[in-house]
């Protein structure tokens, strides 16, 4: 009885979450420019338009460029902070760490407005690099937390052993520490990549209708009249998330990254 209730509950939750996404996938297959479900005629012709039609292709290029660079930026800021705190445990390192946690804790509209004012004061608006910098700083929290987890999991005895074998600070970092935190860096990078691709409000504020990213293009297309390309883009976003998170799950310890506690520790 309880078991049935539990299964019914879990199935309902999974269904409520999957159904809208499946319906969108169905809508993207409509043959004509309509939003029917079940689809009226089957066609994949909206998918190539993402790459062919200038406004979608441009938005896609912008989004991918921003996400790839913002990921690198976020990891490059996070790694020294995490290492600093782990190695030296000084107050200033802790302060930097907490400062790195703040952007993500604030609602994105605040970061968006702060950055917009900053760049308008500098007289440099609507640029791609503004969005890269904003995403890199806003999302720095994720690689910061993950790299710290990775560093904490390094066995102190291993470092001791490397030191007795004559490894100096630099050698220790390049041949022991770096390879051990690399999976966590990659996971952090992937999280930033996905979140940056999906981010709307910062891109909208900073893009100023000059640099347009995919989510911004989706909302503006929705407002100016429906096209099934929107549904196709939505499906692409869903697939991107599925692929990236499955890869993370495959190559690293996802429950641990998300804070699960294993009894062995």
């Amino acid at each position: 009885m309880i078991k049935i209730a539990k299964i019914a509950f879990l199935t309902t939750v999974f269904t409520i979450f999957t159904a809208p996404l499946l319906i969108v996938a169905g809508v993207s297959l409509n043959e004509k420019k309509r939003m029917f479900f079940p689809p009226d005629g089957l066609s994949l012709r909206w998918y190539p338009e993402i790459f062919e039609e200038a406004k979608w292709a441009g938005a896609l290029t912008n989004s991918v460029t921003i996400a790839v660079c913002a990921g690198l930026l976020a990891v490059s800021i996070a790694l020294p902070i995490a290492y600093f705190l782990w190695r030296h445990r000084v107050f200033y390192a802790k302060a930097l760490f907490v400062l790195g946690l703040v952007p993500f804790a604030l609602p994105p509209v605040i970061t968006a407005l702060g950055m917009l004012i900053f760049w308008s004061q500098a007289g440099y608006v609507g640029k791609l690099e503004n969005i890269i910098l904003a995403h890199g700083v806003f999302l720095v929290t994720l690689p910061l937390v993950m790299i710290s987890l990775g560093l904490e999991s390094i066995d102190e005895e291993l470092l001791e052993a490397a030191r007795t074998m004559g490894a100096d600070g630099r050698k220790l970092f390049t041949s022991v520490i770096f390879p051990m935190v690399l999976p966590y860096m990659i996971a952090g990078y992937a999280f930033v990549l996905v979140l940056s691709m999906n981010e709307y409000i910062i891109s909208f504020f900073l893009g100023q209708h000059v640099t347009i990213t995919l989510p911004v293009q989706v909302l503006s297309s929705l407002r100016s009249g429906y096209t099934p390309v929107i549904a196709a883009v939505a499906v692409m976003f869903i697939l991107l998330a599925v692929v990236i998170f499955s890869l993370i799950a495959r190559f690293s310890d996802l429950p641990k990254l998300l804070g699960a506690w294993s009894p062995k520790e």
Partner: protein
Amino acid sequence: MSDATENTTVASVATEDDELVTKPGILGSIKRFPFSIYPTLMLGIFFFIPFAIMIAISFAHRTTSTYEVGFEFTHYARFFSPLFTTHVWVSVQFAALASLFALVVAVPFTFFISRFRRKSQVVSLVFVLCVLTLSEVIVAYSLSVVLGRQSGLPSLMEAFGFVDRAKSWYPSYGANLFGLSYFNIPFAVLILYPACTRLDRELTEAAQTLGASPVRTFFTIVLPMLEKTLLAAFILLFVFTMGAFVTPIWLGRPEDTMMAQLIADQALGRGNVPFAAALAVFFMLVTLALSLLTVWLRRSDKTGVAS
């Protein structure tokens, strides 16, 4: 003003957290690890300075087309105008309800998946992450497809003869609330997940050996143990929902306008940057205060579960 608040909060978090921390001063610290100059500059220039400018501008004087340097509380005084109070109240209601609904679904859901075998657990987590990271634009659009006349539930109702002519279910209060809750649930799951994996299995097993039903065990053992985590989760979700932007635009009515929209409208639509900045500063202070409360709650909870 807010710089000072931020510094003190940073200090209090840092000192409480770690007895191992030593205090050689900023320059001494950087000397120990020169690479720390780079993150200091990046966060300083692209995070701290923009916020400092924003705070300064919230006191600036608005001219007809732009703003000029000044020190006045005009923009903060507008907080007492109905424009502001109505939308804040609307946002608070939506945020509180959506967070509550999300928790009601997420608590049992997370509890169940934290007891799955590892492989199913990983698959469920991938699923949750996929939904969580989806753009607000994509989620709002997908839900509008489900609630729309041609493709979703209304047309299904028509097909089964419940209604004569299907009408779209959005924009509406309910659609907005549903969208916000939908968006909150995966976030709630990720907040609750660490605490659920830490719950001592032996306690629930003991309760059941003593004859308590699983439902009773859940309400008398599991929920009380999660009490502070739940409160912390509620606050985090509340803050997260207050920042919603696309969902109320797409699924809500004009009267369902929320905080983030108000800020965007003032800054971009009406060009009143100082008022938008004042709103953002207020929003930021409230958020920081609430976040610190959750840090404190979670810390005290950890010791509670461990003992």
